[in-house]
């Protein structure tokens, strides 16, 4: 019968991470970019938990707790920044980050 090993989890998490990365690099809407970043973090979380279960020590899962907390904090701050930016530009398209250029 088909059994799920740690490698399957790692592959899935790697795929999630890569999807997130690609999204960050290709998408234009700041919120979508941020969601892609969250996707990356969740990919990491997945591999943390899988590894922790596979290695039989809790460090990985504890780490995931912290990552989730941090992600929440970042979400709060980030969305606030987006609102502040939106107030000025009426848009959160990263193409509109055009004020500061060299």
């Amino acid at each position: 019968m088909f059994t799920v090993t740690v490698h399957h989890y790692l592959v899935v998490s790697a795929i999630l991470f890569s999807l997130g990365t690609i999204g960050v690099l290709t998408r234009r809407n700041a919120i979508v970019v941020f969601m892609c970043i969250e996707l990356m973090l969740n990919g990491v979380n997945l591999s943390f938990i899988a590894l922790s279960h596979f290695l039989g020590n809790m460090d990985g899962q504890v780490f995931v707790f912290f990552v989730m907390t941090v992600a929440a904090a970042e979400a709060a701050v980030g969305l606030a920044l987006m609102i502040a930016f939106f107030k000025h530009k009426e848009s959160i398209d990263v193409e509109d980050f055009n004020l500061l250029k060299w």
Partner: protein
Amino acid sequence: MLEVYLPILVLILCAIALALGSTVFSFLVGQKKPSAIKLAPYECGMPLVGTARQRFPVKFYIIAMLFILFDIEAVFLYPWAVVFKQLGWFGFIEMGVFIAILLVGYIYVWKKGALEWE
């Protein structure tokens, strides 16, 4: 290990079947006499004023943020609660510190008036 989630999967399928089935069925058997007035958004019979795609008060956004943050803290409390009895005083004090820090944020939010709804 994962097999305990199998029933949930099946249950979800049933629920989807119910929701989807009833929608589709009503769509098939229900009568269709659409008219422009009928398809217009309902504003108590008054002619439409502006669009609904507009920015809503930032208040709601703040509530959402607070929810995320406090909910995450709640997540920390669950595992702690389960092993609390073994941890004894140690665990109690640790969580006391945690909740105290939480309270700092809570008082801050309160005083900032983020919880006021004029």
